[in-house]
């Protein structure tokens, strides 16, 4: 039943939102090995962009370029241009700390810190000095948990460790943690792959709500999920961006044979 609800919201795609991020001729090398080849891609504001493609095609590599998480991998080299609101994120003048506050990320496996639920959400505001005082911090934590749809479940036990929550709750805690610093873009790399269908449905619902305020990029292996939650879809294959467009077009009317093969389940 949830799926049908989501199906319906997913289709209310709104064309013509502003461009939030743009990748131009993005290539990535891990040492000698090239993982991405001249990817041109656009992320629209207030839309969910899905990245799909067979395993190893470079989806994670691409999404990690958007907030420079690839910087933490010594052998990784990125070339090309990636802009956030027209500024190049790889420009030397850009502070990566600030960039990651604007472009948040949620990972495949829920990774709450071994701290209390409150401290997990307060982590970002604290390191960025966002909250002026205790009451403001409380406010941020509360609204973040509310936006992540977790508030009712945890409001009585904010002091308990975040690692004690269920997998689905942990993932929503990680989303709350990410939105606590008021990012503009949220990147999600297979956020539901470690969750059961009910927790997945909750996270999908949440993604759909978050679309009101953020640009969202989500990597997924589930074609149904891409169809349900996203307005735009990009199909990657062997490090190339094969096809990109409105989700309903990609799924009903793909131009490229490889896209068609993939979404009809012929490979991958």
């Amino acid at each position, binding site marked *: 039943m949830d799926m049908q609800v989501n199906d319906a919201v997913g289709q209310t795609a709104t064309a013509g939102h502003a461009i939030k991020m743009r990748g131009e001729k993005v290539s990535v090398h891990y040492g000698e090995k090239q993982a991405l080849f001249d990817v041109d891609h656009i992320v629209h504001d207030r839309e969910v962009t899905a990245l799909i493609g067979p395993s190893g095609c470079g989806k994670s590599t691409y999404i990690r370029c958007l*907030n420079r*998480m690839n910087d*933490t991998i*010594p052998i990784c080299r990125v070339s090309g241009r990636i802009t956030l609101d027209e500024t190049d994120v790889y420009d030397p003048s850009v502070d*990566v*700390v*600030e*960039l*990651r*506050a604007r472009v*948040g*990320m949620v*990972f495949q*496996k829920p*990774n*709450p*810190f*071994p*701290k209390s639920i409150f401290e997990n959400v307060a*982590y*970002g505001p604290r*390191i*960025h000095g966002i909250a002026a005082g205790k009451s403001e911090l409380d406010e941020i934590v509360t609204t973040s948990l509310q936006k992540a749809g977790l508030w009712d479940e945890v409001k009585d036990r904010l002091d308990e460790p975040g*690692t004690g929550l269920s997998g689905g709750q942990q993932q929503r805690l*990680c989303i709350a*943690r*990410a939105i606590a*610093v008021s990012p503009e873009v949220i990147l999600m790399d297979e956020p539901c792959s470690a969750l059961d269908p009910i927790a997945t449905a909750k996270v999908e619902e949440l993604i759909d709500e978050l679309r009101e305020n953020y640009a969202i990029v989500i990597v997924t292996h589930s074609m149904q999920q891409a169809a349900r939650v996203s307005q735009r879809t990009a199909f990657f294959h062997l490090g190339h961006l094969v096809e990109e467009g409105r989700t309903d077009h990609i799924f009903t009317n793909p131009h490229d044979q490889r896209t068609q093969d993939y979404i009809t389940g012929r490979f991958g």
Partner: protein
Amino acid sequence: MTSVFLLVLVGLFIIAFIAGRMRAASVTGGNLHELHSRPTYHGGYLAIWTVIPAIVVLTLFSVLYPMIEDRIVLTRFADAVAQFNLPEREAFIRDARALAFGGIVSFTDETKLAAAELYKSMHMAGIVVLALALAALAAGGFYYGWTRIAPKMRARHVVERVIMVALIACSAVAILTTIGIVLSLIFESIRFFQKVPLFEFLFGLQWSPQTALRADQVASEGTFGAVPLFAGTALITFIAIAVAGPIGLFSAIYLSDYAAPKFRAVAKPMLEILAGVPTVVYGFFAALTVAPFFRGFGENIGLSVSSESALAAGVVMGIMIIPFVSSLSDDVINAVPQSLRDGSYAMGATKAETIRKVILPAALPGIVSALILAISRAVGETMIVVMAAGLAANLTINPLEAVTTVTVQIVTLLVGDQEFDSAKTLAAFALGLVLFVVTLALNIFAQRVVQRYREQYE
């Protein structure tokens, strides 16, 4: 002689093993898959039957036969021995054996020579009997095993069972030895506490056992208040941890999160080499380099530093335990999942923030237990303190003075000729018991902490 027999038995073991394997192959006519157990197990089965009974008999013989010999000699020479008391009787047997098999003889007489002759002949007879018995056992065992080998025979079960028994025996030896040591510590300590009240030992402020040197002296009892030793140990341990804690921890952080993999691959083993340096070498270093340095430095700035100071010993001991702290901390820091680091970086945290706010709190229990293990190592360390901290049982917290520790006092109490029932020597056991209890408690505590930490991630 026993060793020759053992060698032969080892040879037989190998031969029986090979023979058993071949036998297993031949009873199936080459169809190895018809065997219940792999041929190797049949080889082991045959070898066990050939050798183990013989080894049991050999062991029993070498323990029991000397006793039987003594008994026979004593009855044969009952007339001569009758007027001896127990120590004289033992001396008689010792001398007779020495005459027969070589060794130092106190004095010789007619009877002893005769007894020695008897020993020699009994020894020869014993060897012949033993050789025959072993040969019979080995042959019988081999025959029995040989006839039992058949495709359906469950050789694997037998071999596995024997291996298990052997393993149990080995661990029993280890455990029983430990229990024995602890018991002897406890009993000797009880004897000590019959002479010196427990309360005086644990809370007395005066330590001067050396006055009890001569038993005939009036007022020869020393005073055994161990507080100065505990304080000295605590002081030196504290200095050592103050040195090793920060250096070890920070180098662990550098190695695990900042250093390039190549550098880490070289630096970590190098640090661990420090742990392999014999402590007596550290002692040299402390006594000949560090202590004079501190004294010279102190003189320059107008402080009086004694030539054997707690500071020198503590600092060198700290250097010694750096690898414990750094290596164990490095392991626990590395065990913090990469996903937590990623999560923190993705929030826009810097490396230092990530380490301070995520990694160290997550690794804290492991780091604490690393520190505790290092402390228990420092508490038990002897050589450095003997060489660098001195023997004076001063009750002080001034690190520039000479102090002494529990371990050092144990050494000095037991060095030289001692009566083994004077309060002075027994005090060593009491100190040893205290040391044992403290390090045991520290280790158990550290283990607990580590266990709790493990539960968090696995």
